[in-house]
Each structure stands twice: as C-alpha cells, then as structure tokens.
C-alpha cells in the first residue's frame, strides 16, 4: 500500500526488514555465482572467499529473526503487514539455506581443484547454475516489486532445473561407469549438482511466499516437479 | 532550546504579579464575607438583645380568698383586688386604689379562674398563686424605667415604685419564665400576649402548603422532565414557570382573594386558604428545584434501567426519583422556609385580623407568625417591642429547625453512587 502507517516508526521497522531481505538475497545470489565460477576456473582463493562469506548471511538471518519477533510483539501487524513479516521470516530461512548450499559447493570445489576435470560435467553444472541464478534474480525482483506474475513464472521455471538435474545425474553416472578413476570427482560433482537443484527448490518456495504475500493465499496448484533423479537407473552395460 | 529558556524567564517574571493578584482577590473575598457576616451578626445581636427580655415575665404572688359570692358572679378580678387591698391596707382613696389595682394585669383573673375551675373545692379557701403583673410593672422590673426622670414624664408614679419595692423586699414579685408567651394567643395587653395562636396558624398553613405543593410540584416536574415531548409548548410552560417563581407574592394573595374567598366562598382568615395561597406561591419553586434534581441524575442510570426492560415510569420511580429526592426535598424546604416568612399574600386573604383564640383546626380563623410580628410591631407599648423581637427569635428558630430537618433528611436519603 502506498499510504503510510499513522505511526511512522512502524513503516521504518518494515522498511528495515525489507532492506535486510534484499541484502541477504543479493549476497546469496553472489555466493552462488562466485562458487560456480570458482568451480569452473578452479579458483581456490575465490572458493575460500565464498566459504568465509557465508557467515554474513547467517548473521543476517539472525537479525531477521529478531526483527520479525519484535515487530510481531510490538506492532500486532494485520493483513498484508502480517503476511510481509511472516514471509520475511520464511524467506530468510530459505536464503540462509541457499547460502549454505553455495558454501558447500565452494568446499567441494577446493577438493575438485586438485583433480582433473571430468568430461563436460563442469559445463553442465554451470548451465544449471546459470538457470538457478536467473531464478534467484527474478524472484528477488518479484519480491521487491510485489509482482505476482513474475513470482509465478519463477515457480514454473524450476521444472527446467529439475530436468537438467536429471540429465546431469545420468551424465555423471556414465562417466563413473566409464572410468572408475572418475568416481571421486564425479561423486563430488553429484553432490554439487544436488546442491544446485536444492537451491532451485528453495527459490521456488520463496516464489510461493511472494505469491502468498501479494494474494493472501498460496498458489492453488501443485508445483511442477521434474526431478526424476531418484528414479534414475542406468542399464548394466 | 533557547525558546524554552526565554519562556521560563518570562514565566518567572510574571509569577510575582500573579500571586499578588491572587492574594488581593482572596482579601476581597474575605472582606466581602466579613461585611456580610457582620451585618448578620449585628441583626441577630440586635434582635436577641431586644427580645430576650420577653422570655421573662414579672409575676406577683398573692394570697387570694376565693369568695363564693364573687365566684358566682365570675368576678375573679374582684378577688384579686381584695387581696391587693389586704397586702397594702393603707391605701384609702379611690385614685390610689385604682393605681394599686393597676399593678396587676387585667387578665390576672383568668389564672385564678382556671385554677378554681380545675378544683372546685378551692371555693371559699385561700389560695396562693403567682399572677402576671401589668406591662408597666414588668418594664420596671426589667430595668426599663428611669427613676430619675421627673414623674410626669414616666408611666410609673413614685407611689407605685414604693409598692413595687415593698413587694420585692417581701419576695412577692419576681421575674419568672414566660410560659404564657408560648401558650397564649394574641391579646391587647402585652403581658398576656403569646405567639401560640400565630405559631399554630403558621403550622397549619405550612402543613396545607406542603401537602398541596410538594406532590403537585414533584409530579409536574417528573412529567415535564421525563415524559413530555420537547416542543414549543413545553418551552412555553417552562418559561412561564420560571416567571411565576419571580412574581411578587402579593399577587398570589390577590388571586387567593378573588378565587378562593370570593368565587369558592371559603372561610376568611382560615389557615386552609392561607395554605392554598402559599402553595400557589411555592409551586414554581418546587417545580424548578425538582426539575434540576431530576436533570442532575446521570443519563447512564436511565439507560441502564431502560436496557434491562424497565418501562419509562418504572425507570423514573425506581431509579431516578430516589436519586433526585434529596434535591427535591431541599427545594421543598427552601420553598417552605420562604412560605413561612411571607406576609403579603396572607394580608390579602385576611389573616391579618386580630385573633385571640388559638386555632383548633384548619378552618378556624388564624394568623401567622410574620403577620403577628407585623401587628405587634405596630403597637406603641414597650412591652410589645420586646415581644416583637422575641417573636422574631421564635420565627428564626423555626427556620433554623426547618433547615436542620432538611439537612438530616437529605443525608438520610442521599444514596452513594
């Protein structure tokens, strides 16, 4: 709503929450981007930077926790104010997990940097990560603009990420079957791929919360799922 | 920040002036109160000083032989004259005897008569009794006559002084409490005059006034305040009632004369008519006071009663009236106090007549206390001056008593809410 609250400090409180969420979102976005870049370029310093940077995201999540509790206790927010506070609380948790996954990718990058690259796996991961990065950017834009259409689009895009994950899973299995010396590297890559896919799921959750924030209800339909990796099996050669 | 400091300085500067003004105002108030109180005190003291003497009456003790012959002729005064002759045997001439007999009040015989009538066996016996002296002797005993004045200027002759001194030496003349003042009706002779007639007349009048004006006034107030619609007619009525409260009381007397006496033919000078006239006069006061009392009951009480399902009448009788009653009673007492002191309307309906008998009921001719005071004030005798002041004291005592009753009643009915 454009109209200000009668009590100005209420607006300030909500604005503060908004700003921190935006900061967290930006950080998470960059963490993922840096982690993937570190993986591709085998940059150990960058990976280490990502690992260190996760602490900031954790601090911000703690701040959001305190702020939202404070606003709930002191302001008794109603309607869209209440939804905004709850959504911020939930989003912060999701963004923190995204940060954790990015840190995990960076950690595995440190290991992988010592080994030879395996086939085109790294490029596949990168493609998937780009998709997810775009999703993050869009959902944060949707949140800032309270754009429900954009949020719903992001939600649907997760299906692509899931499909990419399924095919990447297959690819890595193939590499591992070809040459057992690849197993260590491919296992790490499997986890990395899983992490990126999980980030995509978290982004989708955020998109659903943005929908809830604007509409007052969660999206009615089931979110589209395309991840069949749990059912993937390769024929014995 | 500098604003606050200059403000503070400004305030500081003005404080002394403001306190001075306050002190000055307080002093004006005290001065005004003192002036008013001093007037009050002067009036009360003056009346008291003048009137307190009337509560004592000079009585002369005599041994009287109840002569059966004279008793048959009801010549009680004759018996007293005989006893006086016995006390002062050396009075020979007729003029002297007349002077001697003049020591005793002309009504002294009534006491003797009453005594013998109560006890017939006293006929033929000698009885001793105290009897009222004449008003001139009374004045002497109260120190109101200057012996040093030349004899021709005073009412008491030297000879009478001699007799009085002798009686005093023998202890046969003294001042006693004047019960007659409180039991007898009016009389031409000051020593025999009492306020009982007027008091009873006032009492009956007030009773009639209260019984007529209070119920009517309260019911009218309840109707006008609680039930009547608020329109131009009721506004007109309210204006008229307020005006009536300010109408000079003598107008009500004229109304009473025209309506009650001439048209309805009610008995003249009766307390009944006096009460009716005073009721007309008091009614507006009671209505106004009662309406104010009703208005002062907070609407929340009415709303609470209505919300629980009380009808409008039940709301008024069960809740509003009990709370308004103290105010109504106060208004009634104020009205009664005013009625007690009113003379003019009673003059018009004839309660100014000289009435000796104490009235026995509402239709007997009567007079009222303020009228009595007026009549006595007219008389030249010194003794009546005394009695006028004494009657005023009695009237004031009545008023104070009524106010005390009002305060007690108010306290009793006042409900804490």
């Amino acid at each position, binding site marked *: 709503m454009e109209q200000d*609250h009668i009590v100005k400090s209420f607006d300030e409180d909500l604005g503060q929450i908004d700003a921190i969420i935006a900061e967290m979102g930006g950080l998470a976005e960059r963490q993922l981007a840096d982690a993937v870049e570190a993986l591709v370029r085998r940059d150990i310093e960058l990976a280490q930077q990502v690992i260190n940077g996760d602490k900031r995201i954790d601090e911000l999540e703690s701040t959001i926790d305190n702020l939202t509790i404070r606003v709930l206790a002191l302001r008794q927010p109603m309607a869209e104010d209440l939804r905004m506070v709850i959504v911020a609380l939930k989003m912060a948790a999701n963004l923190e997990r995204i940060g954790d996954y990015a840190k995990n990718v960076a950690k595995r990058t440190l290991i992988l940097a010592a080994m030879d690259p395996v086939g085109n796996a790294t490029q596949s991961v990168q493609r998937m990560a780009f998709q997810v990065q775009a999703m993050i950017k869009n959902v944060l834009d949707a949140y800032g603009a309270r754009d429900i259409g954009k949020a719903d689009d992001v939600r649907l895009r997760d299906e692509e990420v899931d499909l990419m994950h399924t095919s990447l899973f297959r690819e890595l299995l193939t590499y591992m079957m070809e040459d057992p010396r690849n197993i260590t590297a491919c296992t790490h890559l499997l986890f990395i791929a899983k992490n990126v896919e999980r980030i995509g799921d978290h982004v989708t959750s955020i998109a659903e919360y943005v929908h809830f924030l604007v509409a007052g209800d969660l999206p009615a339909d089931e979110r589209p799922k395309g991840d069949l990796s749990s059912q993937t099996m390769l024929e014995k050669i | 920040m500098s604003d606050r400091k200059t403000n503070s300085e400004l305030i500081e500067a003005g404080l002394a002036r403001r306190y001075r003004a306050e002190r000055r105002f307080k002093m004006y108030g005290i001065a005004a109160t003192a002036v008013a109180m001093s007037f009050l005190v002067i009036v009360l003291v003056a009346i008291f000083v003048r009137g307190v003497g009337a509560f004592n009456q000079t009585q002369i003790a005599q041994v009287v032989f109840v002569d059966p012959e004279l008793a048959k002729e009801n010549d009680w005064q004759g018996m007293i004259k005989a006893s006086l002759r016995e006390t002062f045997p050396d009075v020979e001439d007729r003029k002297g005897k007349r002077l001697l007999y003049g020591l005793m009040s002309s009504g002294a015989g009534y006491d003797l008569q009453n005594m013998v009538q109560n006890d017939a066996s006293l006929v033929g016996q000698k009885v001793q009794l105290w009897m009222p002296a004449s008003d001139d002797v009374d004045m002497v005993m109260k120190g109101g006559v200057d012996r040093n004045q030349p004899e021709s200027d005073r009412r008491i002759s030297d000879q009478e002084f001699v007799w009085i001194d002798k009686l005093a030496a023998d202890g046969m003349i003294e001042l006693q409490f004047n019960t007659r003042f409180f039991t007898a009706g009016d009389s031409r002779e000051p020593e025999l005059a009492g306020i009982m007639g007027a008091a009873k007349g006032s009492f009956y009048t007030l009773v009639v006034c209260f019984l007529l004006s209070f119920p009517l006034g309260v019911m009218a107030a309840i109707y006008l305040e609680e039930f009547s619609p608020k329109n131009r007619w009721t506004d007109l009525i309210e204006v008229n009632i307020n005006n009536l409260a300010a109408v000079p009381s003598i107008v009500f007397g004229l109304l009473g004369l025209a309506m009650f006496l001439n048209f309805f033919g009610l008995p003249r000078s009766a307390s009944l008519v006096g009460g009716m006239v005073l009721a007309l006069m008091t009614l507006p006061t009671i209505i106004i006071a009662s309406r104010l009392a009703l208005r002062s009951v907070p609407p929340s009480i009415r709303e609470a009663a209505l919300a629980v*399902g009380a009808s409008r009448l039940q709301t008024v009788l069960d809740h509003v009236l009990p709370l308004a009653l103290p105010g109504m009673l106060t208004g009634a007492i104020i009205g009664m106090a005013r009625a007690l002191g009113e003379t003019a309307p009673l003059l018009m309906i004839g309660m100014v007549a000289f009435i000796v008998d104490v009235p026995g009921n509402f239709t007997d001719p009567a007079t009222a206390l303020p009228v009595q005071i007026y009549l006595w004030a007219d008389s030249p005798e010194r003794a009546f001056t005394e009695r006028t002041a004494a009657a005023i004291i009695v009237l004031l005592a009545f008023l104070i008593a009524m106010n005390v009753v009002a305060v007690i009643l108010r306290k009793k009915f006042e409900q804490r809410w």
Partner: protein
Amino acid sequence: MALTISTEVSHSARQSDYSKSLSSKAAARKVNVYYGDKQALKDINIEIPECQVTALIGPSGCGKSTFLRCLNRMNDVIDGCRIEGEILLDGEDIYARGVDVVHLRARIGMVFQKPNPFPKSIYDNVAYGPKIHGIAKTRAEMDEIVFHSLEKVGLIDEVRDRMEAPGTSLSGGQQQRLCIARAIAVEPEVILMDEPCSALDPIATARIEELIDELKQNYTIVMVTHSMQQAARVSQKTAFFHMGELVEQGDTTDIFTKPQDERTLAYVTGRIG
C-alpha cells in the same frame, strides 16, 4: 514447505452445536438512521449469526454505536432520531407497529461502556430485571436467579458474603461483570456490548473477554470495540464500519489477514482511523 491458514476455531466453538452457528439470529436490511437532518448510517445490511460473537469495528464516529443501539431500540429515547429499514430478530421486524419495546429489551440485553450499576445493593441490581418482568414468583426463585447469574459471570465467590453491599462499592471490572450479570438475569437471547472493556485495566479486560467466550455458547453477542486486537481475540465475525457505511463483513480471520476492501485494509493495518 507449505503454509496454510485455517479459519480459527476456538475451544468453545468446537464444543458448541454447529447447526446453531449457521443461522442468523438478527439481521439488518437497508437500514438508514438520521439524527435530524444528518444521516448517521447509510444502507446497512448485516447478518448477525446465532451464538457467536460479532464485532463491530471502525474509527470514531463511524456509526457503530448508533447501529448497536438500533438493535434494542435504545435510539427511541433520543429526540429527532429516525430509523428507516428493517431490523429483524428471528425474522421479525422489531420496528414494526405493535412491537412492545419493553418486552424486546428483555430479549435483547445491553452492557454499556462505563459500568453503570444501579445505586442499590448487589443483590437488588441483579434482581431488578426479573422483578419487574415478573420472572421470579418467590424469594427462593429470585435467590436462585441471582446466584446463578453471579456464578455465570464469575462474581459469586467475590460477593457471596456481601450481597447487600452497594453495587458501586465494587472495582471497575467487578462492576462491569455485575452489569453483565444484571443483563443475563432476564435470560435474553442477544447481548449487546458497547465497548465493554474500554474503561477497564488489562486483567479485568481479559476476564471479561473470557466471560464473553463462555457466554457465546448460550447467547448471541454483538460487540462494539475500538480495539482491533480485542475484536480479533474475541469475535468470530467482524463488520467494519466507516463513515456511516458498512464496508465489509465476514469471518474475523479473513477480515484481519486478507480483507477485501481497501478501506478495511487501511484501517486494520493502522493507516487510517
């Protein structure tokens, strides 16, 4: 992670008879109220469901108290107040000709903002209603009614040994409970409450809210309140009034989490009012 919001169901509602809660005890149809020339309420249409608490909220001067007073015809005593439209109780218009106002007010009780016990004893306060309506025939019956009412409002233990003390000797919260006991002594069907807690401290307020929660099992309650939090805590249905109009009515949860009308949203989030 799914987030669902369900319609709030309090303990008491679960226990009450569901079929009762679906029908309308009272309703207003096209109600317009005028004070002289000034229109205080415009075209009010509202449903008051049975055995539930309906809260009327809105900024000052919006007409909610005026509407409340229409429900038991207390506006009749105000000169110049004109009411158009229908107000139905069990389907019958209470403003129809021949409706006995005194009987109506025994069916619809009222509790006011400032506690106003009669300046009588506690016993007489509660007994007054049954007395004038002739509900109790004997002293024993009256005792029963008085004790029962005081028990229902939770006052009986506090006043058991001073029933003859004046009603005004109680504390504010106790006085308000006494007024509620007075209202329910005549066994009304509907209880109207005009900001019943606004003059009370938080503990007394909480006690009254608890009492309202219990009372709604047997009585239909309509409550005007300035406090949105109180409306949110206590009521199942809420109606939002603004400048004489009924802007929105619905389930309390919906009004406070996703109101439909912009004005409602602005009011409940503290942007207007």
